[in-house]
Each structure stands twice: as structure tokens, then as C-alpha cells.
């Protein structure tokens, strides 16, 4: 007569609130033991890196999770002894440019496909659908050659152009789907009042689509922080380097001597992004679920 934890304990709670059977107690102990061990596994890497960043030495061998004499020296060294500030500045710059360009390109396209009926519209939508199937970063050689021809190799603009271009197909569908749910009667009312298409877009559609636009802006802002492939192809010199490239090198280099520095650098990246996620959670959930698949 045993059942899932759910219904058993429910039944038991109703039947006899005071007395728990031995079986129940064992079950509970097992459940909590499971939760606690899993918590340990989940938190260990996170706590370890925090602890490591406070360790005085700089090698992987000597660092301990709970440092004996904690120090912030590595955080200071990041700014005095490495190019970390440059990487941070470059990454922020790329992220902002990508956020703006991606949002503009995609919302414009989505608005047109959502609101206008013109020749070639369906063909356009199908083409976009087909394009989003191809992982565009597979075309590395072409991107490299193209940028070389345009003299945009080793520039942040060149990188952003490709980021912003690559996200158009998938996100156009996502945003268009959201725009479609905004009643057309609102646009028509605005048109009657003499609004142009552009003012309808900025005054009616945009304000009503804030959640999905925030989601789009957030994802295009976060993307460049974690991408490594395209950056390593396009950016060549030290002054153009980004956080992803810099941190990667600290760890994958032949000598792991910069290990504690990496820990500090990783934390300074992870903390703002995690906080950003936490604050904008509402939009992320909404964005994910509107893009999610209906079964």
C-alpha cells in the first residue's frame, strides 16, 4: 500500500497527525538525505571557486576551500596586473552594441511580418524559418573571409554585426508571435487618429510588448559574455580581447599559475549576471514560455 511520497504523507497527515509510522520516518530521512547530498553537489563548485578566489597563493595545488588567511589580493591584482579591465570594458561594449542592434533589427522585422500583408510575406516567413535551422556559427571560414574583405577583422563592430545578424531568424519568429497577440483594433484606432505606421509601432506596439523586448534585449546582452567561438575567430589582438577569451586562456594555458586570479575574475563576471537574471526572472520566464513549444 505504499505510494509516492506525495500522497502517502498527505494521507498520513490527515489520518494521524501525531503519530508517524516508522516507515514514514525512514522515508523522510531518506528524502532529506537525498536533498542534502544533492545540495552539496550543487553548491560545492560554487563555494569552491569563491573560497579559491580568497586564497593567498596562486596555484591550484595549494588552495583550500576555506582559506586560512583570506585575502582580496587577487581582486586587486586583476585590475593592476592583468588586462581584466580592458576585457571587461570590451565585453560590456560588445554586449551593449549587440543588445541595441539586435533589438532594433528584430523588432522591426517582427512588426512588419506581424502587421502588414504584402506580396512575398509567406515566402519570407518560410525562408526565415529555414534559415534558423542552420547554426550560423558553423560558417566560421566564411565569416572570417567576409570580415577580412570588409576590413572588419579584429574589430568589435564586425563581431557585433554577425551576432546581430545570426539572431534575426529565430527571434523574429519569437517576437512576431508576441506581437500577433496584441489586438489589431488598437493599431486601427491609432491609425484613425492619424498616426503613421511608425508612431503606431513606437507608441502602441512597443509599450505593450515590453516583456518580450526585455527578454530579447537581455539575451542579446548576455550572449557575448559567454560566447567564445566567434570571438576567438574575429578578435586577434590583446586590446580587443573579451572576458570569455581572457578567462578561457587563464585556465587552458599550459601553466595553471593564474588559477586564483581566474577564480576572482570568474566571480566578478558571474555575480552581476546572476543578479541580472534574478531581477529579470519574470521576463525570462515569460520569454521562455512564449517561445516554448506547445505539445
Amino acid at each position, binding site marked *: 500500500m505504499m505510494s509516492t511520497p506525495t500522497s502517502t504523507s498527505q494521507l498520513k497527515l490527515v489520518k494521524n497527525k501525531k503519530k508517524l509510522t516508522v516507515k514514514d520516518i525512514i522515508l523522510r530521512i531518506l528524502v532529506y538525505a537525498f536533498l542534502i547530498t544533492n545540495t552539496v553537489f550543487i553548491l560545492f563548485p560554487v563555494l569552491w571557486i569563491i573560497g579559491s578566489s580568497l586564497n593567498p597563493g596562486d596555484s591550484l595545488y595549494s588552495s583550500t576551500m576555506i582559506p586560512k588567511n583570506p585575502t582580496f589580493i587577487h581582486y586587486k591584482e586583476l585590475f593592476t596586473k592583468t588586462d581584466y579591465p580592458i576585457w571587461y570594458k570590451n565585453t560590456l561594449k560588445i554586449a551593449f552594441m549587440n543588445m541595441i542592434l539586435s533589438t532594433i533589427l528584430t523588432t522591426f522585422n517582427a512588426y512588419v511580418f506581424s502587421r502588414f500583408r504584402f506580396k512575398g510575406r509567406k515566402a519570407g*516567413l518560410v525562408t526565415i524559418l529555414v534559415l534558423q535551422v542552420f547554426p550560423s556559427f558553423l*560558417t566560421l571560414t566564411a565569416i572570417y573571409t567576409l570580415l577580412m574583405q570588409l576590413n572588419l577583422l579584429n574589430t568589435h563592430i564586425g563581431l557585433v554585426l554577425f551576432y546581430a545578424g545570426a539572431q534575426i531568424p529565430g527571434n523574429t*519568429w519569437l517576437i512576431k508571435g508576441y506581437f500577433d497577440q496584441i489586438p489589431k483594433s488598437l493599431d486601427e484606432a491609432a491609425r484613425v487618429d492619424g498616426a503613421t505606421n511608425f508612431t503606431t509601432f513606437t507608441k502602441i506596439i512597443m509599450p505593450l510588448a515590453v516583456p518580450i523586448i526585455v527578454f530579447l534585449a537581455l539575451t542579446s546582452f548576455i550572449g557575448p559574455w559567454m560566447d567564445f567561438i566567434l570571438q576567438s575567430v574575429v578578435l586577434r589582438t590583446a586590446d580587443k580581447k573579451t572576458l570569455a577569451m581572457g578567462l578561457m586562456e587563464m585556465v587552458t594555458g599550459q601553466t595553471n599559475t593564474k588559477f586564483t586570479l581566474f577564480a576572482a575574475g570568474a566571480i566578478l563576471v558571474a555575480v552581476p549576471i546572476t543578479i541580472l537574471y534574478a531581477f529579470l526572472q519574470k521576463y525570462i520566464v515569460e520569454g521562455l514560455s512564449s517561445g516554448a513549444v*506547445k505539445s
Partner: protein
Amino acid sequence: MEDKKKFAWLSYIIMGSAQIMKGEYIKGIFLLLVEILTIVFGIPYFAHGLWGIWTLGVTKYHFNEQGIAVYDHSIFLMLQGLTSIFLILIIIGIYIYNVKDAYRPKQAKKTTLRDKIDRNFHWIFMTPGILAMLFLIVLPIIFTVLVAFTDYSGPYHLPPRNLVRWVGLQNFKEIFGLKIWNQTLSGVFVWTVTWAILATITSFFVGLMWALIVNSSGVKIKKLWRTIFIIPYAVPGLISLLIMRLLFSGPGPINDFVEHLGLQRIGWLTDPHMAKVTLVLINMWLGAPYFMALMTSILTNIPKDLYESSDIDGATAFQKLRHITVPMVLLSTMPLLISSFAYNFNNFMIIYAVTSGGPVNPNYRYAGHTDLLISWIYKMTLNQQQYHMASVVTIMIFLMIAPIVAYTFTRSKSFREEDLI
């Protein structure tokens, strides 16, 4: 009005002339400008480009009498050829519009510029996006496909020192026919598929298990557990992966612990088999939270009476899990599982950040034991300059992934509401 139509034929020769006659000056001048630019700059560029993509250049790298290097750069020529084809198509489009427009009677009403812009609003608004897609997505894809039919590779077929040639299907024959290529391809392919399946299934079931246990009514402070279990999702992926690389490294803390227990240090990332297991474990850490978050809402949507009636029938906990919970959850997450499979199939980041494809496999060409197709392509492109083979494998990935993505996409909400097919 009829008078003016007599001049319409002029537009066949001089673009925009009819429009200017009609008094539509801005449009007319724009069209005229397109024609002038095409003749002056376009035709020489296009001619060279088309010749270039056909021949891929004929002049070998050499020094002329003045000691200046003279050469045709095959890859640049190919790109110029492609760009030319794109631009020619666009110009043909404008030309057709021009002729059609010439025969259209002039608008009776005088319109302001503001109205004109508003009427053509959708074209103006879409142009940047369309151009971006055309030149940043379509062009590179076609370029990549074309490279698969050339011998573009180091060390003997690299411009500008050498010319690149069209070789037809030779690369495809080689990759299937030559033992070293064939061996690498099949080995990497089998691991890629195994990896994609294992990675997806393990994180799915761990996520399900977490969701089931956290949501069971015996557990107090659910919110705390849920927050803890979602943490790996919030930490930026690359950072977590690099941390894992260090954790599992030879002198890393996990091996310290193993040694502490009196055991031998384990080659988590250096032993071919162990490295694969470690990757799946790491992926579980990263991926399970996503599935747990998804499951939580799905679980609450399973009708309660299903459990109640099975209670009456005397079903055990395991039976209920197996016959009710898992099938119900699978049903509603199937499309997500498939897209997760497609994602893991191309999960370059985890491989590159944790093992860099290692340990080395002497039986493979340019690939290690844990390399996926995608990281193999990356290595061939960036480290080995085997662009031709990289393109061949890229085409294969396209062909394998496209149906999967297309399938999931046709089930998405935004697609269904559009009613395209």
C-alpha cells in the same frame, strides 16, 4: 495622363525616366542612380566576380618584373562572385519594379513625403533586417557549401600563395573512402550521437527526480530547495564549465578527496572513457535545473484523480511513477527533449571548455576522444586549415539537424498560429 504613358517604354532603357516624366522625381532619380551606379561600378565588379567564381583565378603567385607580387586570390574571388550574384539579383528586382511602376498611372492626389514614406513603410522598415540576413547568414552558408567542393586547405592549397580549385565531389569521396578520414568521421559521429542522447536523458531524469522530491508534500521549505537547485542555471555557463575543468583536473580538489579516501588519483579528463563519463556528469549539473524548473509546472498539471484511482487499485509508488508520472511528463516535454537533443548534438562549449576534445586519439585525424562533430570542425578550421573537409562535415551536420529543428519548430505556438502550410 494617356500622353505620359507613351514614355513608359523609355524605362526599359533608362530606369526612372518614366517616373520623372510623371513628376515622381525622388523615385525617378533613385532609379536612375541605381542604373548609373550599376553601369559605372557594378558591371566591371560583377564581370570580374562571375569570372572569379567560375575559374577561382588563374594567375599563380609570382613576382613580376618590378618585383611586385602578382596573384589571384581564389577565396576572395569566390566571395566576390557570390556577392555579385546577390547584387545582380537585387538589381534585377529593382529593374522589374521600375518597369512595372512606369506603366502604372500617376497618383491623382498630391501626396506629401510623410504619406509616401508611410505607404512604403514595411519595405523601409524591413530593409536593414533583410540585408543583414542576406549577407550575414545566407551568403556565409552558400560560401561554406561551395568550399566543400574545392580543395581549399593547408598546406598546399592556401591563397594567396596557391590557387584553389574546384574538385567536384572528391572531398565527399575521400571522407567516406579514405580510412583515416572515414575512421574519424564514424568514430566522432557515434560519440556525438551517444553524447547527445546521454546528455539529454540524464539531465531530464535528474531534473524529474528533483522536481518530484522537492514537490512531494513531506518536504518543508520547498522554496529554499527549489532556489538551491536552480543555482547552476543562473551561473553563466562558460564560467561553470571552466570551474569544472579545474575541479576535475589532475591536481584538482576532487582528486585530492579521492586520494584522501586512500584511493589512486583518477584521470577524470585524461582517460578516454572516464573523460566521457565526466562530461555527462558535468552536463547533468548544468542541465538538470532547467528540466526541474520545467517539470514543476508540468507535475502540478497531472490530474490528481489518476493517482487516486490507482491508489484504489493498490498500485505501488514505483508503478505509479512508471505508468502515470513518467508517461505524462514525457508526453508534454517531448518536443523540448528533441530540441535539447539538437542542442547537445552541437554543444561545442562544454567540450571545448572542459576537455578541448582531448585526450588525443592517434587513430583520428585532427580529433580527440571527446570531440563532437562541431568541435572537430572548429579544430579543422582554426588549427589545421582543412577548410574543405570542415565544410563537408558542416553540410552533414546541417542535413542531420535540419529535420529535427524543423520538426520541433512546426509544433511551436507561433508557427501553428501562422498557418503557413
